[in-house]
């Protein structure tokens, strides 16, 4: 086993996901001068996408644009990637903890007889070994875990946690690889991609929810929340009071008698936080409360709070986040 790092770049719709730069950053920590960082890009558009990561100090970028692998399939990509791993023999294989990464990684780890650490939020090298930090028990605790023995480790890393790598001088060799995989041998095929209906995820599955209460005063005012949530790729939620008053549809109701949600970010606008509502969103990872009333019970459960008029705060928040993107 070498001391190298192999970074897997996810290509969707011909575009390379930007998490790869974060993976490269992590890779640099792991190799810290001793090993090299290689990248593998599989899928239609891989060759063009390779230029995105040319100039980041990688040793080699392998692109695979076989017809059989132009779209993602677990078996196809796993077979191909495993072959490449076996020939390169890296110590670490890094992937983004995305739908593809999680799916692919668990198949590959069995093929290469390695170990996999899923959904890590941080990766560092300590005494020449990788130490990965990952959440457990739905994020109530974290563990730091390290591989044992000379086995390759697959590490999937959550996007937006490790700072992305800066570019460096020099360019990287781009090599084409033919996987030799026969499409007929792939037993699970993607026939089409269906974009989310209405563009927004269902509130019970969304990772980000911007929720409004009675203080919205009118159904049309929910537009302010929609703008914010669309920026973040989330869903709009509502308290029972808002639904009763006709400001929002019942499908958006969060609470004891509505939907129970578990997003990473819950922004409660003008919601007082009575237990009936809290029962629906208590387990949200991060709760932000915006309310005119500093005594509103929601502030007892929120992680961050702003006492203010949501009609003032939310538009400014939207602008600030737009600046980030």
């Amino acid at each position, binding site marked *: 086993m070498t001391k190298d790092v192999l970074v897997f770049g996810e290509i969707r719709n011909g575009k390379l996901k930007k998490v790869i730069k974060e993976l490269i950053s992590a890779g640099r920590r792991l190799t810290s001068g001793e090993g090299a960082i290689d990248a593998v890009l599989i899928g239609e558009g891989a060759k063009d996408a390779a230029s995105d990561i040319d100039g980041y100090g990688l040793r080699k970028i392998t692109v695979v644009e076989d017809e059989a692998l132009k779209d993602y399939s677990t078996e196809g990509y796993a077979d191909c990637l495993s072959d490449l791993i076996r020939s390169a023999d890296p110590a670490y294989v890094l992937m983004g903890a995305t739908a593809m990464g999680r799916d692919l990684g668990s198949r590959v780890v069995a093929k290469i007889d390695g170990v996999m650490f899923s959904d890590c939020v941080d990766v560092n090298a300590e005494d020449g070994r990788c130490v990965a930090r990952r959440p457990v028990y739905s994020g109530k605790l974290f563990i730091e875990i390290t591989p044992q023995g000379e086995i390759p480790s697959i590490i999937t890393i959550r996007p937006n946690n490790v700072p992305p790598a800066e570019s460096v001088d020099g360019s990287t060799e781009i090599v084409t690889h033919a996987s030799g995989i026969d499409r007929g041998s792939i037993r699970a095929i993607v026939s089409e991609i269906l974009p989310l209906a209405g563009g927004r995820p269902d509130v019970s599955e969304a990772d980000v929810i911007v929720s409004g209460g009675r203080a919205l005063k009118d159904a049309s005012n929910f537009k302010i929340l929609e703008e914010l949530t669309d920026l973040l790729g989330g869903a709009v939620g509502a308290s029972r009071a808002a639904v009763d008053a006709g400001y929002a549809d019942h499908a958006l109701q969060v609470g*004891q*008698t509505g939907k129970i949600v578990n997003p990473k970010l819950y922004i409660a606008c003008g919601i007082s936080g*009575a237990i*009936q509502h809290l029962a629906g969103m208590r387990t949200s990872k991060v709760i932000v409360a915006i309310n005119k009333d500093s005594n509103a019970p929601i502030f007892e459960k929120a992680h961050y709070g702003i006492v203010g008029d949501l009609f003032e705060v939310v538009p400014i928040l939207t602008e600030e986040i737009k600046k980030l993107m």
Partner: protein
Amino acid sequence: MTVDGIIMLVVFLAVLVAFFLILRSLVKLISVGKPEKRFDNPWERFKSVIVYVGMQARVLTQLAGLGHFIIFWGFIFITLGTFEHIMGMIIPGFSYDTLLGRSIAGAIYLLQDVFGVLVIGAVIVALFRRYVLKPERLKIDDPKAGREATLILGLIFVLIVLMYGIKGTEILIERGGSDGFYTPVSRFASGILAGWSMDLVVANRVFAWIHHLIIFFFLIYIPYSKHIHILGAIPNVFLRNLGQPGSLSRMDFEDENAEKFGISVIEDYTWKQLLDLCACTECGRCQVACPAYLTEKPLSPFRMIHNLRAHLMDERGRLLGGGGDGEKAIIPGTVTEDEIWSCTTCGACMQECPPFIEHVQKIVDLRRYLVLTESRFPSEMHAIFRNMEVNYNPWAIGYASRAEWADGMDVPLASDKKSFDVLYWVGCAGSFDARGQKVTRAMVDLMIKAGVDFAVLGVEEKCCGETARRMGNEYLAQTLIESNIEILEKYKFNRLVTACPHGLNSFRAEYPQFGFEVETLHHSQFLLELVKEGGLECGNGALGKGVYHDSCYLGRYNDIFDEPRELLRKAAGVDLVEFGRRGMSSFCCGAGGGRMWMEETLGRRINEDRVDESLDLGIERIITACPFCMTMFEDGLKSREREDVKVVDLAEAVKEACGD
């Protein structure tokens, strides 16, 4: 014996036999139901009959009841007279005069005579109410019901008129010993009849025959109409629930092969429940007391009982052994799921019902079937059941956090003390709901101040099971109850005090079914005791005006009305204002029966109705004695955008007044 007499004898005997057969088949029909023990305490039961049947005590709680009182007693005396007349046709010379002596006979004749007029008056008023005033309580969407009532009223009217016809003509032909002395009205009638040109003897015979035939018709018609209540009501009063009104039946889960739990077809009900159906007078008082009906939900206790009775009669053939098409489910043909789930179990219907029909148990029985056998219930309840199973509270809050309300306080734990005077039952709302926790802390502060030897169970406490039981999940309820009893039996204490009327009711009315009995007090009773014994010193608290809301499970089910009021006046110095609908007639907040956890999508909101009632009183404070009521009022005030009106619990009001 005359020809008349022979024919009358034959017809009379035939009718008696028919009536007897009908009675027997009704008894057989009701016996199809499951067993139930109701024959305990016969003396108490007999007294109930005197008060509620003889004195028509419940009927007379409303002015219109006077009409029924008149018709009821009128009919008894008139029937006595009819019997005398029929017997007189069969056995010439048969009369009460000869049998019972002048004075008793005279009394009977007089009463019969006077009541006749009163009955006519009552019938006219009844028809006027039904067709001109059209009171809400008589509204039912089955046109047959109205037609039946009108037919019966009409026939009664005709019967009385014929009675005076018989008596009047008798006076004129000086027959039957009726000299009109004890029958002033009949004498008056005879005056009118004197002017007729028809043959008096013939007229008398015609009047008598028509009269008696109508009576015979009545006898046979009774079981097929709402007049079955004549047969059913008196036994129903005798067999009424003498136990705690707030207890539901305990189900037995011993049979591991049972495929069905709860009631799905009519014969699953107990015989007493089937008798209930035959006791309904269709007065509709339950309907206009029902918070669900009054807020335009599909449920009407009146209609439910009416439909169940009609269904029972429809199924007679099959139930009495006539084959038929097989079992017919009660849901949805006779009672719909929306009706079943709309009930808050407030008990107002049962409180109003003159023949003591038990509506709530019937509804819960249907819920039991839906929940336990078919797992078919409003989707919101799935999570509630799950939460109670896993974390012993209806909210999804980890059970290990149950005692967090006590953080920062020095609250004695039962597991430390082991033996103490009072166990304070905090309850789920008191433990987990931020608003409820404030009440718990207020109460605990007061108890510590008064030096009460108390303890709480802390995390050992589990939901008392009341909600699960009312929602029909008897299995879950029993699991919780048995779990709690196991814990409670580890400790020695004299009394249990709780701020939640549902918990109170559970411990008073339901835990004894499982072998656990303890003197249970509501916190208002306990606080009043402390104040009276001097343990709590409350200065002249002057908290101003406030209205006190009687919770259904505190007042109606457990008869606690005065202590909270006394406490508020004495200790908290509240200038008490009363709701129009208060005491036994208090209007439900809408949260009972598990409704707190369900969406209210049909009709208007019950809590908003009650809040509107309170706003009309123009006060700034609403005082509650129950965490459910408190939540309902606060929610309602929020929807009405009147958060300037504050809702406080009794304990908080007392604490404020006893402030340091």
